[in-house]
């Protein structure tokens, strides 16, 4: 019975991802890019959720794992013949190696996870504001180093010549993988222990849970997922260091908070809903026709609307659209007991 409830929980996010993917097959090629982008966003936000949602600790640093994943997959999958022209100062072993699409994604995940481990070892001792600022510092350092160190990537210039292998199929499969990974984690022993530390750190410690170790495990897993998502992202569009910095940090956090930070369903709903609004406005910035009316918003409208939306949700419904709950089917004739809150 518990397995059934768990599967019901999994079905919500998976159905949503599948619906977005199916809808994506029906639209024109140009519009399809927005759907693929939304699915990549689902992967990033699910990665964020795995750590922030389960631990209750804020991280502003996850986009650095996305960036590192993007760099790994990008550098390793540019064709050998084009590397000297685009990235002349690359380390020799990077210049001499090129891998395919799937290995590059796996390596992106591995590098993201390894970096999260290195960063997490000292930082997972921190909570609250100190954790927020320290993870922010990680983002600043990563951005700074990737921007200027041309031995490991293209530096300030935009990644070009990365094979664009992230199509609708790859993006939806990857989003489902991310969702299943997060679901499996949160139903595992580790996920439950971490959630216990979120609800009451003192009580969790009293029954022998190591808050530090549980947070570190979640941080590494979520770093690996974020790196994986970064790999997907670089195979979708030409990126540079500025795309993987404050704006992306803001918009992915907004997605998580708007959807509801404490549930997997919330992460997916938030990612898809905000991506939808965002893509609509992006098109409106270029001018579109809706129901006989021509909409033409000035550039920058997107962030105004998303920012206002996020502030409104935080004020009116601090636990997000889903209220931080997973999908469940109430059974008749039984009393439902809800714990917490």
């Amino acid at each position, binding site marked *: 019975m518990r397995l059934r409830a768990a599967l019901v929980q999994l079905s919500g996010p998976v159905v949503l991802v599948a619906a977005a993917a199916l809808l994506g097959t029906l639209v024109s090629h140009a519009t399809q890019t927005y759907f693929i982008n939304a699915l990549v966003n689902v992967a990033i936000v699910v990665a964020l959720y795995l750590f922030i949602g389960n631990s*209750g*600790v*804020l991280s502003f640093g996850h986009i650095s794992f996305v960036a590192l994943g993007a760099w790994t997959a990008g550098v390793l999958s540019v064709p050998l013949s084009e590397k000297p022209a685009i990235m002349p100062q690359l380390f020799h072993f990077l210049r001499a190696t090129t891998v395919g699409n799937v290995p590059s994604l796996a390596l992106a995940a591995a590098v993201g996870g390894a970096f999260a481990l290195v960063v997490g070892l*000292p*930082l*997972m*001792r*921190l*909570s*609250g*504001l*100190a954790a*927020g*600022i*320290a993870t*922010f*510092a*990680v983002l*600043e*350092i990563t951005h*700074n*180093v990737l*921007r*200027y160190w041309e031995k490991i990537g293209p530096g300030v210039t935009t990644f070009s010549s990365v094979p664009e292998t992230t199509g609708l199929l790859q993006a939806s499969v990857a989003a489902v993988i991310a969702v299943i990974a997060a679901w499996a984690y949160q139903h595992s022993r580790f996920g439950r222990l971490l959630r216990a530390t979120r609800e009451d*750190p003192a009580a969790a410690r009293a029954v022998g849970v190591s*808050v*530090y170790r549980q*947070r570190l495990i979640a941080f590494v897993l979520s770093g690996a997922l974020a790196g994986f998502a970064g790999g997907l992202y670089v195979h979708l569009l030409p990126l540079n260091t500025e795309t993987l910095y*404050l*704006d992306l940090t*803001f918009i992915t*956090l*907004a997605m998580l*908070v708007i959807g509801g930070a404490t549930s997997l369903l919330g992460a997916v709903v938030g990612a898809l809903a905000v991506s939808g609004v965002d893509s609509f406005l992006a098109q409106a910035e270029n001018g579109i026709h809706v129901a006989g009316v021509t909409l033409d918003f*000035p*550039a*920058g*409208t*997107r*962030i*105004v609307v*998303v*920012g*206002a939306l*996020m*502030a409104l949700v*935080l*004020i009116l419904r*601090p636990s997000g659209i889903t209220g931080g709950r997973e999908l469940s089917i109430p059974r008749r004739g039984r009393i439902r007991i809800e714990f917490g809150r």
Partner: protein
Amino acid sequence: MIASVLGIDWQTLADAVGLGSIYALMAVGIGLVFGVLRLVNFAYGQLVMAGAFALALSSQWNWPLWTGILLCFAVVIVLSLLMDRLVFRPLRGQSPAVMLVATFAVAFLLQSIALLWFGPLGKIATSLAFLNRPVTIGNVDIRKITFVATGTAVCCLVLLVLLLNRTNVGLHMRAAAMDFRTARLLGVRANRVIAVAVVISGVLAAIVAVMLTVQTPLVTPDFALDNTIVVLAGVVVGGMNRLVSATLGGFAIGFASGLLGGALPTNQSQYLPSFLFAAVILVLVIRPGGLFARSGQTAVERV
């Protein structure tokens, strides 16, 4: 020139003190609001940005200097009161993380409104450019703004200390910062104390706007964004619990980034943020409660 102290020349030292002073003022602005609301205002830099745009516009309209500064103060104070009324007040009592994310949203909102309004290229504030001219002392050139910034910071801090220690409102604010609920029970009026803190923090933001436009006359929508991130790090590194330690943290990080900027060899100066933020992480890991916090009085728990 490159003489004396640890191979750092006097000019770098003076610039570092100037930058430290400006950052200390921002730190006070952030720390005051944190004291009464337990809210880290990420949108503080956008208040400074709004003030800077007011200065730039008034210099574009050829207004006299003092009206420009007046406009700057008016814009920043009104904006900070609005922010308090529309965002901070409904969020009162939420967890610090929720409030931090909310101010993050407000910051992006204001920045993109500025982007819509003024465009990405920004405007130039020229009215105070004369403060960039150097004064020669001995054989060292020091820009006038360094003296002005340091002097203003010292004056503001002295005034603030007097306000906090010698007036009723100051007493209420200190009480509220110590324990808001108990202070309210004893008759401190919450909204009034918060409004005073918000206004003072707005005044400081306006002063910072004036100083920063002298250093960087080109005002763009992301004006003061980087500075705010650095100051926030400085405030947390210093210790958010007390205003003094937060201010010291702000000064320290400004001073350190000024010194590092002068001390790093040119081919490594682009890595300045990395060195700075690595130091931030190091300090946070060793002393999560803050560098200047009193021992045994740590607000931030270590796991």
